[in-house]
């Protein structure tokens, strides 16, 4: 036994995770670089002057579209915050842990809802012939004016993002130690003092990351703008890219717009990384206990809370009710028999399931590999995944279109491109959900597993999968829901031969077949919830089958 540094096998680096995770990270970076280089190739100034011409003639238009995109995203994020923060506090004050848990589960409906379905629901409530117009006509004789335009876009963005923010705020409030509520009650703190000393410190750190991520989601919003924008005055970079590519076939313009979009999104993602917003994607906050406080009994506080909660329910629940009530119509049995519906259903289902499984598997492998690296190594994995927050589906689609159009028939391989794009777009969310738990498991179980000789498949089957099952189910369900609701890539590559349910719904709405569209919206929403639920519960059921230690 000679002196000198000993070499022992690193107990963390065994298994196939590391090579597979590295392969995944390299693959992700390569795809993004390939798309980027295609965009740069098509969008950069060329000797024939084509792109310079595009740039010179359209610079004003690009700036205007970029400016509007930035403006609507900022306004959407701010309004979502303005709605979510007071409602979260009102809910926290007024509801029991049980009801809070169910309200949180309910908020999933809006998070996983396809945007095309949401538009149908929002029009059912706020549209010219919607429920609110119906009430107003009964009261004052005239209803609401058409909801299209910036107002409609903001309403839709708040509908989607306020529940997301609400969940995170309630999670933040749940993390306040019970002792602080006891002290507040004992000292008789006023509402303002309680907010300043207890609630605000728990919430303020969440706000920058949350606002940034909602800004990014609204900045890259596509189908809502396409369906509710109402014209060229309300158009974003995403929609302009789509128009340039699909209608004008102006590749340099599409590439240029994509590069502008990519640059701004990359800057936002960099800010997000600095803000360390990892904790924002949670499965479900576990509501803590809040003691009743002296101010809770005041009548004006109770009335204000009731008004806030009722307003939020009107915003979030009314469109859901509209989707259900309007969807159950005479058109429903008719729509179910459409051959186009069958084709779209099968395509959507296959793409959603496969892309969800791929995204979850890749996210798991990369998260598992990540914990076996030091800080720099981990950063590479995070960057490889976060790239796809910056490279939105439409930018990726445009890049792939330009890259592949000379090589293959891009419309012929549309299903594959859709699958790839949906997987990549879902990946950052799936990764965030899994990575935090994986980190925690590695910290608490690596040594124990090494000492018990639990390695490889045996460790995954008996220990990792059962512990990670809720996160895996959630990540797969979320990925499937995102894929089912996606209308971005299919808008680029869809055709009569290949279309998905959101695209079919959009086309039906565009033909003003409102009843058929409502029935389709209900079917798409039901399928989304079904797939989300199956993945969520399926992982937990599978866990029970896998971990019988004594088998």
């Amino acid at each position, binding site marked *: *036994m000679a*002196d*000198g*540094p*000993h*070499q*022992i*096998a*690193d*107990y963390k680096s*065994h298994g196939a995770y590391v090579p597979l995770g590295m392969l995944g990270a390299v693959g992700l970076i390569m795809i993004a670089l390939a798309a980027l280089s295609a965009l740069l190739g098509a969008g950069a100034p060329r000797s024939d002057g084509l792109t310079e011409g595009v740039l010179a003639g359209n610079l004003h238009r690009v700036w205007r579209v970029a400016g509007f995109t930035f403006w609507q995203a900022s306004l959407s994020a701010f309004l979502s915050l303005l709605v979510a923060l007071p409602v979260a506090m009102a809910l926290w004050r007024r509801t029991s842990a049980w009801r809070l848990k169910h309200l949180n589960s309910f908020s999933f409906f809006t998070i996983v809802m396809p945007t095309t379905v949401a538009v149908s629901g929002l029009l059912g409530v706020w549209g010219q012939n919607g429920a609110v117009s119906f009430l107003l006509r009964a009261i004052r004789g005239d209803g609401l004016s058409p909801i299209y335009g910036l107002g409609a876009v903001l309403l839709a963005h708040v509908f989607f993002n306020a529940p997301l923010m609400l969940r995170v705020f309630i999670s933040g409030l749940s993390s306040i130690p019970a002792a602080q509520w006891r002290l507040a009650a004992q000292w008789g703190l006023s509402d303002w003092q309680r907010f300043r000393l207890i609630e605000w410190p728990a919430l303020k750190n969440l706000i920058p990351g949350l606002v940034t991520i909602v800004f990014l989601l609204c900045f890259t919003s596509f189908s809502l703008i396409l369906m509710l924008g109402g014209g060229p005055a309300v158009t974003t970079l995403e929609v302009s890219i789509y128009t340039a590519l699909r209608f004008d076939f102006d590749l340099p313009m599409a590439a240029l717009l994509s590069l502008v979009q990519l640059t701004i999104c990359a800057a936002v993602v960099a800010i997000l990384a600095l803000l360390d917003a990892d904790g924002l994607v949670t499965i479900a906050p576990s509501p803590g206990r809040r003691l009743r406080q002296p101010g809770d009994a005041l009548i004006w506080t109770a009335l204000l809370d009731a008004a806030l909660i009722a307003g939020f329910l009107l915003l979030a629940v009314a469109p859901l009710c509209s989707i259900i009530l309007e969807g159950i119509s005479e058109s429903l049995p008719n729509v179910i028999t459409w051959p186009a519906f069958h084709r779209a259903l099968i395509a959507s289902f296959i793409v959603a399931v496969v892309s969800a499984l791929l995204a979850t598997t890749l996210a798991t492998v990369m998260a598992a590999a990540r914990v076996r690296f030091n800080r720099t190594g981990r950063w590479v994995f995070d960057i490889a995944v976060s790239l796809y927050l910056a490279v939105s589906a439409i930018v990726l689609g445009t890049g792939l279109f330009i890259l592949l159009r000379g090589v293959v028939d891009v419309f012929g391989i549309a299903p594959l491109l859709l699958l790839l794009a949906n997987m990549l777009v879902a990946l950052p969310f799936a990764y965030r959900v899994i990575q935090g738990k994986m980190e925690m498991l590695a910290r*608490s*179980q690596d*040594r*124990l597993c*090494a*000492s*018990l*000789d*639990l*390695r490889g498949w*045996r460790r995954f089957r*008996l*220990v990792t999968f*059962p*512990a990670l099952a809720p996160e895996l189910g959630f990540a797969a369900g979320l990925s499937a829901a995102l894929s089912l609701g996606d209308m971005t890539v299919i808008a680029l590559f869809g055709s009569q031969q290949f279309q998905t349910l959101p695209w079919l719904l959009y086309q039906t709405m565009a033909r003003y077949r409102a009843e058929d569209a409502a029935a389709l919206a209900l079917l798409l929403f039901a399928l989304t919830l079904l797939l989300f639920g199956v993945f969520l519960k399926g992982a937990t059921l599978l*866990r029970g089958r896998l*971990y019988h*230690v*004594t088998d």
Partner: protein
Amino acid sequence: MLLIEELRFSWGEELHFTYDLSVARGEILAVQGPSGVGKTTLLELIAGFQAPTAGSLGWDGDDLCPLPPWQRPVTTVFQTDNLFAHLSCFDNVVIGLGPEEKVTPARLVKIHEFFVQLGLEGLQHRMPSQISGGQQQRVALVRALIRARPILLLDESFSALDWEMRKECFDTLKDVVTSHDMAAVLVSHDTRDAAYLGCRELRLAAG
């Protein structure tokens, strides 16, 4: 015999540890000393979670240093995080058996006996979240005893138990170490532990 000679380890530039000790089969060694003198580090070196910079670490003449943790004849009861939250107490014990080791009727009887001896009777099918921290540590001890590896490492494993319960654990520990010819290293900050066990003490000091 567990034999450690001039085993060196450094945490950065500041902390340097050197260990010289031996533990015979059937013996328990109580390692004591203030915080930061390297008690847990010693166990990590023996278990293979840290690599020494120099020196030797052997078991019955075999060099343990090149071996990864799962190939060492060692089992450890950690200070915390000994149980898997999704497994029942029984499954947490059985999972300690190697992939090739079967749950034989004789092993089942042995597991039951340990559960009874350590005051855990009736808790076999409870989940870790349904028992106390002290009970969790005792379940981990049952697993370590069932694994019956020749070297047993205990890192402040019973600090959370009250003295009466700790004595019962020590009684079981002494029986198993003697009957299985094991070498046990117990890190503890309570001087009563070594006195009750009647074992040799190793007091580590800074520097």
